[in-house]
């Protein structure tokens, strides 16, 4: 077990007039190699929750273990934890500050105290992971890039510390479709080719449906659903709508077909899935009709 959360509660501005309870009794286990999606309405506590994973926030009550180590015990080196768990914030391009992209990506490894040779290797590796050409980019200023490229540099600057787990908060927000697709394919690559555990935070149903293997649904500071996306979209469609989330468009389409009396499987996640599912049914009907005609 990689991360283990036990009865986590968190309250902002505790004891102040503006006190708000952001997390209520969260219990969660994440294993190494998982690909998790975390969805929920704006303000449901997603961002607050992930900031607990690497010790940026300390829970009001409850315990967090990363590889068996209690994060809130005195003397725990949180910098080591943050090296294992790379957290990519929303709009990470807003944190770029160096003169060149090389320096930007090298910031993390340099803070780890690595020798220059190793740093260069890591920068090469990280830029390759996000599909940016090393020679073309390293001398350029991060502020001269397009939005999508900036985000990839920001992602590379986390990947260069070689985290075992990558948490991404709304990685595709405010990107055009092309930038969205390239970031998503890089995240998939990071997971499948390099075996990094990924937690994807989003409120975009389509995106999580087609990428993740396990889905956590949050509502008002609680995890209300925890299952595979297929199961959740098939069986808990009503719960999702109730908490203001809705379904991916294809899944919703299948649910509507079913409501009209067509016997289709509603746990589809992509357009391709839906297509083969519908074709299957159509073929069956045609076959039946043909058989009928033959009997006549």
């Amino acid at each position: 077990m990689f991360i283990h959360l036990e009865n986590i509660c968190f309250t902002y501005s505790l004891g102040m007039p503006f006190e708000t309870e952001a997390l209520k009794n969260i219990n969660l286990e994440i294993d190494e190699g998982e690909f998790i999606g975390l969805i929920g309405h704006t303000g449901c506590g997603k961002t607050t929750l992930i900031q607990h994973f690497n010790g940026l926030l300390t829970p009001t009550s409850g315990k967090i273990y990363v590889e068996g180590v209690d994060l809130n015990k005195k003397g725990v080196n949180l910098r080591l934890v943050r090296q294992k768990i790379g957290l990519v914030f929303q709009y990470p391009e807003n944190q770029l500050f160096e003169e060149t992209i090389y320096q930007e990506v090298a910031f993390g490894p340099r803070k780890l105290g690595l020798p220059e040779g190793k740093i260069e290797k890591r920068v090469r590796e990280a830029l390759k992971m996000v599909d940016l050409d090393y020679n073309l980019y390293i001398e350029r200023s991060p502020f001269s890039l397009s939005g999508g490229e900036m985000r990839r540099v920001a992602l590379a600057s986390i990947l260069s510390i070689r985290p075992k787990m990558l948490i991404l908060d709304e990685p595709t927000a405010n990107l055009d479709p092309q930038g969205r697709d390239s970031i998503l394919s890089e995240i998939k690559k990071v997971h499948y080719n390099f075996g990094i555990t990924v937690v994807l935070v989003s409120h975009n149903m389509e995106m999580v449906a087609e990428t993740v293997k396990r889905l956590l649904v949050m509502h008002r500071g609680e995890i209300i659903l925890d299952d595979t996306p297929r199961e959740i979209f098939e069986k808990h469609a009503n719960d999702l709508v109730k908490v203001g989330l809705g379904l991916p468009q294809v899944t919703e389409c299948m649910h509507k077909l079913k409501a009209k009396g067509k016997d289709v499987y509603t746990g589809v996640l992509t357009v391709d899935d839906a297509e083969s599912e519908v074709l299957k049914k159509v073929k069956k009907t045609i076959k039946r009709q043909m058989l009928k005609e033959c009997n006549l």
Partner: protein
Amino acid sequence: MRILRNISFGQYIPRDSLIHNLDPRIKILSCLAIIVNLFLITKFSGYLILGSFVLISIIISKVHPKFVFRGLRPLLFIIIFTLIIHLFMTEGEVIYQLGFLKITREGLVKGLLISFRLFILILTTSLLTLATSPISLTDGIERLLSVFKFIGIPAHEIAMMMTIALRFIPTLLEETEKIMKAQISRGADFESGNIFNRAKNLIPILIPLFVNAFRRADELAIAMEAKCYRGGEGRTHYRELKIKKTDILTFILTIVITITVSVMF
């Protein structure tokens, strides 16, 4: 991040009270009268009267005294520092001696007087900002300054800059916290090292903060122009300030108290 949690800007606490509902101009002028008065008084009894006047105002304002006194915290050091300086540095009748350090009666009196002065000064201004929303505060300042328009003081522009600055303090603080967290996640360290290293470690916060602030200023300017903003000339107000009877009474009361106190003490 513990550093940021202790700063409370834009500290307006909404309540429905006599003090809250006063005209901002009256509140600003009354505060000015009290502050000027503070520097005229030379006796403890004067501070006692003025102090109780401010304390009663705090009670009337329904703002929890905890919030008002919190404003003292950052300046406590200065108050204690001036007290100590006065205790030991004033010549006069010695009442306590410790080696070469000696406390004099005159020093004690002077130190305490100045401490009271600073103490009441901070309480008064804290109460003003706690019980007046930033918008009506700048509104009041604009109206008061526009008296001096004839000597070329751009009252509206000053007030607009203040409003914008106040508006963006919480935004900037929030953003600083976010950038700090992001850089900590990338391996930055803000809590150890000597003072030079710490200063150097601030670069990853300051540069993104400035870049974003400039971008935001640019966007705001464009948005204002898109809404046909063209400065203060001929601009009307959504909420017109009107002097009510309570405003006049409060102002008269303040002036009477301050004048009496400064004449008698």
